[in-house]
């Protein structure tokens, strides 16, 4: 008897979960805010300022989605997640989307039942060494001690890279990035390895950045992007195409400065007109207002503007576009057509 009650309760909970998952858009609209999972703190990608307002490259994606869906880029509840809690927070429905420098991998997509809606940053694992070491390539690191964060994909990549190149190394396992940097600056290891974006951000904080160099080898692919859970393709499409709208806007030259002008009257570029809702009915097809993309772009600008504002070469993070340039400039950032 008791067992059947328990099973019944589970079934009801499961059904409720299914029903809720199937209509994330309605939930978000009813709630009036978007619950967006972000990192508890990663320089340039997500961080709270002194007043508790979240800012950053990943945060801007959340704000663009909120602007597209709710018309207000500040209607976001940012849920700080750690590497350990991010996936359960998403699959349990605590957050509607996760925008937290998460690498798109086979097992996360299939085994954990998530949908990666795109890539907003192509990262890869690199090495930083002191110039005094006199090393110019990662292949010269034979016998070096390497600081490495445990329990991450970077640890596995490191082992594979050294095995493939048939050179030896001595790992120094470290728990957090902060601790690793302390160990590296104290000289406890010859090299530190993590995502190249993180290395650049960290190097900028050293007392003498010019005494350290980032080696040219990138030993892994780390495509980072926002994700949603399986089971609600309509919601996944909204997040995917909001990201694509930001990317397409840069390609077509739509910026936060001129988006109002361009959207006020049809221009002579039909794709811009379709994107901004002055022609066609793309907004209606995706289940949003006609000017959804305009609002998303107006929030923090197009992809290129967001990049320059938070992690670009003029910021202390100082990342070059590299792989993250538009495909027209030799990068990998590419949006399918708005048609």
């Amino acid at each position, binding site marked *: 008897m008791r067992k059947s009650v328990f099973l019944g309760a589970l079934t009801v909970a499961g059904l409720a979960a299914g029903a809720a998952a199937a209509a994330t858009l309605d939930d978000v609209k009813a709630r009036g805010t978007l619950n967006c999972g972000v990192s508890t703190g990663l320089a340039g990608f997500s961080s709270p300022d002194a007043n508790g307002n979240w800012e950053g490259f990943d945060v801007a994606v959340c704000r663009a989605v909120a602007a597209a869906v709710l018309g207000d880029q500040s209607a976001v509840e940012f*849920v700080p997640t750690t590497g350990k809690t991010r996936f359960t927070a998403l699959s349990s429905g605590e957050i509607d989307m996760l925008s937290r420098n998460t690498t798109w991998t086979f097992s996360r997509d299939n085994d954990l039942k998530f949908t990666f809606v795109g890539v907003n940053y192509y990262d890869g694992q690199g090495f930083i060494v002191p110039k005094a070491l006199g090393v110019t390539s990662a292949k010269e690191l034979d016998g070096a001690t390497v600081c490495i964060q445990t329990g991450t994909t970077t640890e596995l990549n490191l082992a594979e890279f050294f095995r493939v190149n048939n050179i030896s190394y001595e790992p120094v396992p470290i728990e957090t990035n902060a601790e690793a940097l302390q160990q590296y600056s104290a000289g406890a290891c010859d090299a530190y390895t993590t995502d190249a974006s993180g290395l650049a951000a960290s190097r900028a904080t050293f007392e003498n950045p010019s005494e350290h160099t980032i080696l040219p080898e990138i030993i892994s692919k780390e495509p980072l992007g926002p994700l949603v859970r399986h089971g609600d393709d309509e919601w996944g499409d909204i997040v995917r195409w909001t990201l694509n709208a930001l990317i397409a806007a840069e390609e077509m030259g739509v910026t936060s400065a001129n988006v109002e002008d361009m959207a006020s009257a049809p221009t002579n570029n039909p794709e811009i007109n379709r994107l901004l809702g002055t022609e066609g009915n793309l907004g209606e097809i995706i289940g949003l207002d006609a000017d959804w993309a305009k609002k998303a772009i107006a929030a923090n600008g197009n992809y290129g503007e967001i990049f320059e504002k938070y992690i670009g070469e003029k910021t202390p993070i100082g990342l070059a576009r590299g792989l993250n340039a538009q495909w027209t400039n030799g990068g990998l950032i590419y949006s399918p057509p708005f048609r």
Partner: protein
Amino acid sequence: MSDTHGETVRFVRETMLPEREPPTSQVGLLGWGRDNLFTGPFNTIVTIVSLVLIGYLLAGLLPWMFQSVWRADSLSECREIATATWGQSEGHACWAVIRERWPQLLFGFYPSELYWRPILAFALLIVAVAPVLFPWASNRLLAVSAAYPFLLAWLLWGGSIWGPVMVAAGFAILYFGVTLLSGRIGALGALIVAVVAALLWWLFAVGPVAGELARLIPIGLEPVESRDFGGFMLSILIGVVAIGCSLPIGIVLALGRQSDLLIVKALCVGFIEFIRGVPLITLLFVASTLLNIFMPPGTDFDIILRVMIMVTLFASAYMAEVVRGGLAALPKGQYEGADSLGFDYWQAQRLVIMPQALKISIPGIVSTFIGVFKDTTLVSIIGLLDPLGLTNAIRADTAWNGVYWELFGFIALLFFIFCFGMSRYSMYLERRLRTDNH
């Protein structure tokens, strides 16, 4: 007598010598040093080595702490100022980060215009615990202590006042149910009826009644979401709740473990051993992730409430064992003495056993309190922004990326003040309760 002495002893002093100053090598700094620092060659060597070590540490630490930059907007600006002033940027603290972020480290993202609420809650906490901690505090303050849990919740989370009031009314139902009914249907019957009535009230009536009252007489504070809680306020909140609830629960568990009733005993032993066998971080993961999956989506079971419950359960299990240690240390004669006076079980516990057992356990109890308070920093692992979690968030700001020791030093100082205070209080309490005549 002196005559006899006069014949047998050659010389008898008949006046006292005037008192003389003790030799300078025995008093003052020198004497103290000789007695405490330089007795024998081994101690002398230890003293000198220690002095050198302390001097070395202070030589590095003091310039770092006091030749520091207080006014800057970023770490790089700090370094520029330090280089301009002292010629190098290494070895000089950048306290500007504390200057800019101290409200955040204390209150998290709590709205700044509402800071008076946590401050008032903290001030009331001192009033509420005074009658429990100090003999000179008036017993009338106990009314504040009883109302405090509801005041705390209302002040911190805000919202309508009727929610906490109606929850408190449940306890009134419990109390009056027991006192009024116990004459008619016996103590146990009254307890069962009162508990059932109170549970029904909490589960079904509180929500609608409080909602209706809030509509009719809207008294309330601006609500603040749990997500905005953070910093030291979060640590204190979780610590105070866990400390306040774990002692009574721990006492009950310790008594249950010694009970002759098989089921009660089995339940208590099972609970204690299970909780003690599991790391706190596991319980926190259960609170943050597993419960989410079990509960239907949209259920708003506050994350901070979940964490507080888990930390309380964890502390209770340890507390139960500490109290059991105190109980085991009491001689059997105390139990038999209480029985021979005709006390029933609860009277014996209240008047004879517990006062002695708890007194024995004070060091253990306070150690557990301090441990729980420090363990609250573990919540940063499940994404709550306690002071340690905030250090990461502050470093993620490009202006402060690379600041470590200043933040950790500030947090360590705050924790030290609280933990040291608790430990000094426990020593005061032990002195006050000392009844033996040594």
